[in-house]
């Protein structure tokens, strides 16, 4: 039977642990003058990568193991981020530029008289934390329940998930939504009493993100190695077969989709305090596609690969946007093309294929059937 922590998982978790130990030490303990000192801005940067990695893991759970290519996972990430952002906004209190103790700044200058109802409760961390899980989870549950029950699959599903995040983006851009419109939520002060700008907080939330990533990985891994995971993979490979065996694929898919969305929400919630802003741009369909690409680059259906892909692509982006600001898109675009053409299994998948067992290599999922072709006729036999 497959173990919860296999070799690649063990390597991944120990690397992650080492990273989460080394970064605080290099930042907090090593003195600033030393060549080994890690500047604080890098701590936040790495924290951001880890949040993205968690998003990638959540995406891999549904895409790699369940065949749901979600082009809307950025929406769940952003919703989690907004829930956290709303809490952080309420924490500002009267320290905003207008000094209003209840209303965030953007509401003051848009002439809001009272706090909209959906902002109630966000002054409590526990409530906000609950919403971080609940809002993306509920949306995913509703969406999944509708879509999977009607057997929307493949490309159709991808396109409507994209439509979902696009619709949310348009909605959140509206200033009348009462969530800050295009500017989103920003100028955060503190979280649970810690100043979000302080070095200690940055290190703390970095470690928290690392832990969340480890947990996220373990949850996803536990799900995929359980009986549930076997059925999930069966659904991915031959959905109609599972149905004739008496399984209801829509239940399995909805569950995976919901758990995955909640995980993405947590990633978003951890991301927001580190980058200091959440705005509707996070819903942009391009972001979700990019997340898919992280998974593809790392190797889908491996979880570890997804996390690795997210870190690698974003690290490349950081380096390239600084080193070659006028041409980095060429490099990034070329990377995507090259990886799909020459490493269809992604980095981890390719390594497993080369060095791992045949058994492992066989876990590469087949592509779902593409939509019907033009003028294809139905025929009985």
């Amino acid at each position: 039977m497959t173990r919860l922590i296999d070799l690649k998982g063990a390597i991944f978790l120990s690397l992650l642990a080492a990273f989460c130990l080394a970064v605080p030490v290099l930042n907090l303990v090593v003195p600033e003058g030393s060549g080994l000192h890690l500047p604080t801005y890098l701590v936040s940067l790495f924290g951001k990568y880890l949040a993205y990695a968690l998003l990638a893991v959540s995406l891999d759970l549904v895409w790699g193991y369940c065949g749901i290519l979600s082009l809307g996972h950025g929406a769940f990430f952003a919703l989690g981020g907004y829930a956290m952002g709303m809490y952080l906004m309420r924490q500002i209190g009267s320290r905003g530029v207008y000094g209003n103790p209840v209303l965030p700044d953007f509401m003051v200058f848009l002439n809001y008289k009272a706090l909209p109802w959906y902002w109630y409760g966000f002054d409590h961390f526990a409530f906000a934390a609950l919403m971080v899980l609940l809002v993306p989870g509920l949306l995913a549950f509703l969406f999944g329940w509708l879509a999977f029950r009607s057997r929307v699959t493949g490309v159709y599903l991808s396109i409507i998930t994209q439509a979902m995040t696009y619709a949310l983006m348009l909605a959140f851009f509206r200033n009348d939504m009462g969530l800050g419109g295009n500017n989103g939520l920003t100028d955060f002060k503190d979280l649970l009493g810690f100043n979000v700008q302080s070095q200690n907080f940055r290190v703390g939330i970095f470690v928290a993100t690392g832990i969340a990533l480890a947990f996220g990985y373990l949850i996803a891994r536990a799900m995929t190695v359980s009986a549930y995971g076997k059925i999930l993979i069966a659904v991915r490979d031959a959905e109609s077969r599972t149905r004739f065996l008496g399984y209801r694929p829509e239940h399995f898919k909805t569950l995976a989709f919901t758990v995955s969305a909640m995980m993405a929400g947590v990633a978003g919630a951890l991301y927001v305090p580190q980058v200091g802003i959440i705005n509707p741009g996070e819903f942009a369909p391009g972001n979700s596609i990019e997340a898919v690409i992280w998974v593809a680059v790392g190797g889908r259906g491996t979880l570890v690969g997804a996390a690795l892909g997210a870190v690698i692509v974003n690290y490349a982006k950081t380096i390239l946007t600084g080193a070659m600001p006028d041409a980095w898109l060429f490099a990034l675009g070329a990377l995507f093309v090259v990886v799909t053409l020459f490493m269809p299994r992604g980095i981890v998948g390719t390594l497993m294929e080369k060095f791992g067992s045949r058994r492992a290599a066989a876990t590469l999922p087949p592509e779902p059937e593409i939509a019907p072709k033009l003028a294809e006729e139905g025929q009985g036999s």
Partner: protein
Amino acid sequence: MIAWKTWSSAAALAAGLSLSALATGAARAEETIKVGILHSLSGTMAISETTLKDAMLMLIAEQNAKGGVLGKKLEPVVVDPASNWPLFAEKARELISKDKVSAVFGCWTSVSRKSVLPVFKELDNILFYPVQYEGEESERNVFYTGAAPNQQAIPAVDYLMSEDGGGAKRWVLEGTDYVYPRTTNKILEAYLKSKGVKDEDILINYTPFGFSDWQTEVSKIKAFGSAGKKTAVVSTINGDANVPFYKELGNQGIKATDIPVVAFSVGEEELAGIDAKPLVGHLAAWNYFESIKTPENEEFIKKWQAYKNNPKAVTNDPMEAHYIGFNMWVKAVEKAGTTDPDKVIAALPGIEQKNLTGGTATMLPNHHITKPVFIGEIEANGQFDVVWKTDKLIPGEAWSKQLEGSKDLEADWVKLNCGNYNTKTKKCGGA
């Protein structure tokens, strides 16, 4: 098994390399003075911001040709925040922490400025922000060289109400749905009402970013404008959406003589992308126009076209704002004798710099500058014919007098050391 080991050690090595790659650079000795340029070179905002990056590079090269600052050469550090707002904050942090820049020139959208604000406050550096914006802000670390609403929107409305401007009685406030149009329109609505314009004579409408199908909106404007009273449109439509908007205006035959449109975000750069003939007579309000004839401006245009190696390259208002801001910064650094941000911030208020269009801009204690306001009519060649200008320079107001929440606020970083001093409660920190 062996293979796995190889892989893991390779991964560890890669991680180690990347750490060191990111961390170096900080230690290098300060032979030059670094100046950060934080403008999007890709994504949706590249269309507007790329020219500003080039303008900054030109200004820095020019200053270096004059011998630099404090005897040191200036070194521009260009990064691409890719029209991604969180990335703006990340790149700002990188510029300040890793590249150790002495000041940053950058941002275009309000949201990008809001995104980097905490970074500049935390790391105590200087941002020069060159674009007209909604006001309602004054930060110690930010210098606003673009127009505040009272330096652009209100004079434009005044002009349209005047006999010269056509004596408009009915108003359409058409904007993209984001904070700048929202705030500007709030201010204008309050201002118009104070001038006796009735509710039913004001139509406010918002459209999303990048809106491209203007048929319904334009026909709505046309219908609103045919009610018998002289109608004018105040447009705060953002960049991308303008071209289809004007194309639709031209298509539906709305001429400037019927319903003039005054825009706050349409400049020479935007007009270069459209056939301007159907737009002749529509207006824009800016603090700078390329067509204004002064020796300084002519020289600036000449240098710009030579720098871009394109005789058709146009200049625009935010470029002048960077020109003023950059020169002010140079003067402040020379005055302070150091690039230390704290000292430079203290030295900046009161610094003067000649505008390209005549007059002298002064950095005010609220970190905004004094500016002349021009109203230009679009000409067939995509330039503007200045039809009206303020007779004196107008000081930028950080807080609008027209808005309920901000009418008692005042910004003064020199005497009060406060960006939001409440004149009623006599306290710093808002209401």
